[in-house]
């Protein structure tokens, strides 16, 4: 029991502090600043130096020291709470915003269950014989995994809404309202578009979904979600981007209209935490889309004992188990970062929507499309 709990703690630290947070924070730098500067033909951050470490004192390191300096700076800033604000909620809200962004990671599988015995590949599945399977690569293997994600992402509305209300400021209130309306609008299309994928996999367990995506249609085409549910993929990507309030859906914090939206009145680490939670949530979007639509940890043709081309029991190219695991985790990280990169490209190449356009997109385009997608998928599944 104790070892189980220690293992869980280890997994949490590994996932949150070594995967989600670093990628999320690095994004602030590489995505928000360096990539944007490249797109806009600027230099971007290049002044901060890591002069403590010998040998790095003179190097700009593509601006990475900037992000460390930013974090340090935030800690030493004054925490100003405006008059008339609800102090209790003002203090709690940053933690409330961070909470769902971290907790959601609990169900993301980084790899299939570890098999202590021998692996036999049958019908595009790894079957563990003469051994146990151990859940080393996801924090919790919930059968209701996807419902858990929806539940927690529903909770994340509260952070923004309460932040807007607690600040006692007009910009904040408008930002909070806009963000809650936008998030609940897109939650509908999010859930309905992914229902098509659930229909095909027949499960809500994320790891099982990924396992099923190892199937090869006709022996050569990986049955990834994006292959069987292309429309759902795009709707889900759009809805998730709107959920995280990232540009071009960044109406709740539109700088040119309402300063910084619901966190206008937050300073110092509170501001940093809200920003950080947004970035972590953005990484999570990448991980979730990779899991549901891009085959998760699957590498095409790679199974537990090596590469198989077609439905064959023996591997065409045998690999040791640790190499398979490394390849798969690498593939998962690559897919996650690819979706992140895609989000940033969208962010810097699309103009921001007007608020009515955001709402129209959600209710008049995404919702009917996801309903139609669901009906067509259900019909095809029913007659097959």
């Amino acid at each position, binding site marked *: 029991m104790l070892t*189980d709990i220690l293992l*869980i*703690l280890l*997994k*949490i630290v590994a996932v949150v502090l070594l995967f989600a947070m670093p990628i999320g924070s690095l994004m602030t730098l590489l995505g928000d600043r360096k990539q944007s500067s490249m797109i806009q033909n600027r230099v971007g951050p290049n002044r901060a130096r890591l002069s403590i470490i010998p040998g790095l004192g003179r190097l700009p390191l593509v601006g990475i020291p900037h992000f460390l300096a930013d974090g340090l700076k*935030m*800690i*030493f*800033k*004054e*925490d*100003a709470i405006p*008059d*008339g604000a609800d102090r209790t909620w003002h203090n709690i809200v*940053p*933690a409330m915003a*961070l*909470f769902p962004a*971290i*907790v959601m990671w*609990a169900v993301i599988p980084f790899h299939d269950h570890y098999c202590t015995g021998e692996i036999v590949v049958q019908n595009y599945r790894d079957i563990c014989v003469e051994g146990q399977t151990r859940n080393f690569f996801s*924090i*919790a293997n919930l059968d209701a995994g996807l419902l*858990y994600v929806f539940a927690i992402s529903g909770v994340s509305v509260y952070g923004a809404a309460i932040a807007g*209300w607690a600040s*006692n*400021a*007009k910009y904040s*209130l*408008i930002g909070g*309202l806009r963000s809650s309306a936008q998030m*609940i609008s897109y*939650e*509908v299309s999010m*859930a*309905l578009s992914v*229902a*098509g994928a*659930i229909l095909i996999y*027949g*499960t*809500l367990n994320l790891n099982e979904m990924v396992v099923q995506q190892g199937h090869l249609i006709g022996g050569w085409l990986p049955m990834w979600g994006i292959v069987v549910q292309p429309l759902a993929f795009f709707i889900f990507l759009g809805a998730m981007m709107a959920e995280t309030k990232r540009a071009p859906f960044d109406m709740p914090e539109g700088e040119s209209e309402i300063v910084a939206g619901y966190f*206008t*009145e937050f300073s110092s*680490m*509170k501001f*940093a*935490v809200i920003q950080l939670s947004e970035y972590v949530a953005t990484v999570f979007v990448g991980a979730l889309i990779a899991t549901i639509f891009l085959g998760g940890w699957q590498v095409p043709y790679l199974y537990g004992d090596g590469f198989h081309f077609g439905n064959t029991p023996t591997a065409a190219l045998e690999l040791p188990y640790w190499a398979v695991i490394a390849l798969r985790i690498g593939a998962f990280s690559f897919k996650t970062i690819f979706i992140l990169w895609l989000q940033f490209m969208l962010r810097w190449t699309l103009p921001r929507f007007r*608020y009515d356009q955001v*709402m129209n997109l959600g*209710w*008049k385009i995404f919702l*009917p499309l996801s*309903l139609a997608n*669901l*009906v067509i998928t*259900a*019909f095809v*599944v*029913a007659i097959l």
Partner: protein
Amino acid sequence: MIDHIAILIIFIFASILGATVVALSVFFGPKNPNRWKKTVYESGSEPFGDSRLKLDIKFYMIAISFIMFDVEAVFLIPWAVVAKKYGLYGFAVAFVFITILAIGLVYEWGRGGLEWD
């Protein structure tokens, strides 16, 4: 069981992490508030009027629509999990359900319930 304990542990972990990070600035940050720091930001002018604005009715409309269609999703997701087992009959039943809600959407759309302006 262990999976649910894991969920509990990550809940605690996330709460502690959030509280710690927010507390950092309380310990390390300076404390010298003045009147101008404590007023809310309204593009540089003096704040006027009540900050708790009246909410636009459109937000309520969005909220009501959300309730309707999210409940639809709540019913459709369990169906989607088991839909393969029930074949065409299950599809027909769900189709009736989706059609009714689609008619609701068409009606709301036609009545201008989804118009933002």
